[in-house]
């Protein structure tokens, strides 16, 4: 196991390096001039522009810029964002917890809604419940997130006034004392119940919207894998032994059906982050999705690379957890 983890870690480093190289190359192939992010459009004096280029290291040829970037990266320095003019490390520390909180809620909803929905569809195969569940799952995967976000906002905030329009907290309210940056967790730790409730209410709509795609995928995967295993010998044997239907489905069938679902779960995580860009801008959720969009428009390499790296790390970690889970679900699978 230890050896396996070490190998995975080394492989991850290689992946991360390739990610920086690919992002950097792509960013430099796109036409445009990042210096305009820091210089007012009125400025014409070449000396001022040259000075700004020098300050942000944009005066050097691209390969040199890349080598410097990697060198700083190895020292834990992600550079300075041209968009916010602050160190990228600081920007990410501020924005990432917001996205993490949103993603955790979204994953939670995707699993607790998508899972049972899939089970229901499988056991009521071709019945009305199956059609309904499949309809819901199809809706979740087919409707684009940005549209769903606007739709939800219009219904729940504008017409029904059940949920707040946007933001992580009500307007003008200070965040709970910083500990993790996850407002719900920080509020709980400090016993600020009103803030906890407020943060939860604010997170509900964006996370449900963000969950929709993953929820649909999970429901469909659970349904089809469960249907597959239901016809297996061991399920028939379990039933023949006189086990209750609940035990048959939950302990025997579902556990085996979960392996492909878990695989998909790892992959959906990427979609979750991509969806965050739309969700965050509609719901004014100050996370790395918004930050990514903003820095990309300005061709702010440091900012874009910072986001790409943190997403890559999260993706790698998440898939590592998924791989470890295989072993838990099916002891026959050994990680070696």
């Amino acid at each position, binding site marked *: 196991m230890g050896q396996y983890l070490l190998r995975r870690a080394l492989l991850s480093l290689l992946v991360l390096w390739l990610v920086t190289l690919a992002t950097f190359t792509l960013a430099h192939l*796109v*036409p*445009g*001039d*990042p210096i*305009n*992010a820091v210089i*007012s*459009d*009125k*400025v*014409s004096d070449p000396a001022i*522009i040259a000075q700004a280029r020098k300050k942000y290291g944009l005066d050097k040829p691209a390969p040199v810029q890349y080598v410097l970037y990697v060198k700083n990266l190895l020292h834990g320095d992600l550079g300075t964002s041209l*968009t*916010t003019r602050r160190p990228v490390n600081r920007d990410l520390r*501020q924005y990432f917890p917001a996205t993490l909180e949103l993603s955790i809620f979204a994953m939670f*909803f995707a699993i*607790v*809604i998508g899972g*049972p*929905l899939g*089970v*229901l569809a499988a*056991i009521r195969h071709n019945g009305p*419940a199956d059609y309904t*569940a499949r309809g819901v799952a199809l809706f979740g995967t087919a409707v684009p997130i940005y549209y769903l976000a606007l739709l939800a*906002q*219009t219904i*729940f*905030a*504008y017409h029904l*006034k*059940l*949920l*707040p*329009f*946007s*933001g992580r*907290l*009500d*307007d*003008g*309210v*200070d965040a709970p004392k910083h500990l993790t940056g996850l407002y719900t967790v920080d509020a709980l730790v400090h016993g600020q119940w*009103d*803030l906890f409730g*407020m943060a*939860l*209410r604010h997170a*509900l*709509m964006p996370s449900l919207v963000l969950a929709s795609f993953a929820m649909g995928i999970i429901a469909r995967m659970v349904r089809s894998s469960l249907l597959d295993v239901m016809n297996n010998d061991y399920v028939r044997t379990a039933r023949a032994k006189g086990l*209750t*239907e*609940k035990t048959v489905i939950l302990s025997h069938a579902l556990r085996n059906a979960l392996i492909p679902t878990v695989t998909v779960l790892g992959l959906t995580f990427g979609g979750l982050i991509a969806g965050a860009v739309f969700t965050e*801008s*509609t719901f*004014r959720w*100050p996370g790395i999705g918004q930050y990514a969009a*903003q820095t990309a428009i*300005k061709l702010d390499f440091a900012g874009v690379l910072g986001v790409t790296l943190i997403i890559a790390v999260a993706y790698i970690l998440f898939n590592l957890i998924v791989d470890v889970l295989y072993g838990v679900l099916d002891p026959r699978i050994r990680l070696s």
Partner: protein
Amino acid sequence: MKRIHRFRRYAAMALLSLIVPALLAACGSSSKVADTPAPTKAAVPTTAAAAPTTAAAAPTTAGASSVAATSAASPAASGGTATGAKSGGQLIIGRNTDDLITLDPGHFYEVSAEPLMGAAYDPLVAQDAQDLSKFSPMLAKEVPSVANGGISADGKEYIFKLRDNVKFHSGGTMTADDIVFSMKRLHFLQDNPSFLTDPFSTKDAVNITAVDKLTVKFTLAEPNVAFLTYVATPNLGPTDSKAVKEKGGLDTADAKDKDKAKDFLDQNSVGTGPYIIKSFKLKEEVVLERNPNYWREPGKLDKIILKYIQKSGTERQQLEAGAIDIAQDLDADAVADLQKGGKYTVVTGNTLNLAYLALHTAPDVGGPLANKQVRQAIAYAVDYKGIIEGLKKNAAVRPPSVVPLGLLGAKEAQPYIINTDLAKAKDLIKQAGAAGQSIKLSYDAGGTVEGVDAETLATKLKADIEQSGLKVELAPTDPTQRLSDYRASKLQMNISTWSPDYADTNNYAGTFGRTGQAPAKRVKYSNPEVDKLVDQAAKEPDVAKRAGLYGQAQKLINDDSPFIILYQPVAQIVTKKTVTGYNYHPVLLVDYYGLAKSG
């Protein structure tokens, strides 16, 4: 039977997971739309009550000038106080604040920051929003003039006598040293707004001195009648030197690299203005609270929140649902809709922004455009009326030349305006022998030009110009690339915009017309006659004479047609009926001090 029963349980489980979130939502509905003040902040409003003593102590002259300052004072403002807008409350303003990155007066140069900084950092003198040629005293006891000895006879020295006992947000008392420190820091930070110190500084020296504790003297390199408009910008508002220094602020030549106060100033204000910056959350909101120790009568609101809303559609929904009180960037259709219902107030005002076509005048880049007749032909071919009515839905006006309406010299250029005349355009192209020649029109791909989709505008311009006999090739370009190319003087013809750095004609005639200045340089435009006129105007203290000089300069600029001004947008702001005192300000957007909310 048993099986069915279990299946029900699964169904119930799935249903439950759907219902729980819905219930959660319902439970939370008590404080639903974020209009209600947050429970944790309930303590805030009362602080306002603690204000009075110092406020009452404010000099009576201050009261008078406060009326002058807000007297921008259209019916709305006076109506507001007359109907008894009660003191207090929280006001939420919705705006796309994508540009907002800093609230440090030495660094900020973003439009969205102007009203915030205007509310936090009082200037020495204020420029009247309704009549930009008028100034009223703020932190200075009087507006310097030659008559009162505040301006020297040669127009190079400006002396400001400061009000006594004005408190900074940080607690200190304002002295001349604070002003000197603030100007030097602004200069040596060498960021976007640093050029505002140009009139009284060289690269290594800032020519400002504290004559005594309450007198400060600026020495200009040459006479500049626009100088007071520089002084009126929030960037030049005094900061508490002691507080800034404590946080690592510097006013020395190495400030550019070593100043550390920005982080602090992004979250706190150390000015003397009516509202104090309490917090700034990037892409979320900025919160301001009333300054209880303000030197005039304190502001009418307990709290002002500038809320980031990215899209016009969402902004409208939030206004209608009551989540915001003011919507600053609704599109023309939404404004028209809301106006019809009669439930909202629509405030309008001429901006000082310009949308224009820039035509390169040198043969190597401009090609046929190097010929004045071809440039004139384009000016005659553009359908200005169609653009303003069709694309801007009438939310724009057309200035006669490069000086926007509302500034000195615009009226004087009126006789020289070029109106659409297709016959003349065709004739000019024929004379120039340019028929069939192609011109490349660059514009921001996916961008907007003062509220008009760039693609739509470019297409309209192509259709208009091609009627003259020229051919136009559309060249959508990445916005950052277009700006760099334009700056490097590489674009044959492009659509660009201009907004004021300071509200004086010199920021237009002296930049579009003057050889080597920002837009002129970008199209290689140079006319020694124009240079002479605008240089002379910049030093001319006599207002009527100065206006005449600008009129003459614009006559020549229009004749040369290196720039074709397409329109000057009119700002449209929608507020709830409960909001009073909202007056459009061409530089600050709105003066928060006059705002109040009833009910």
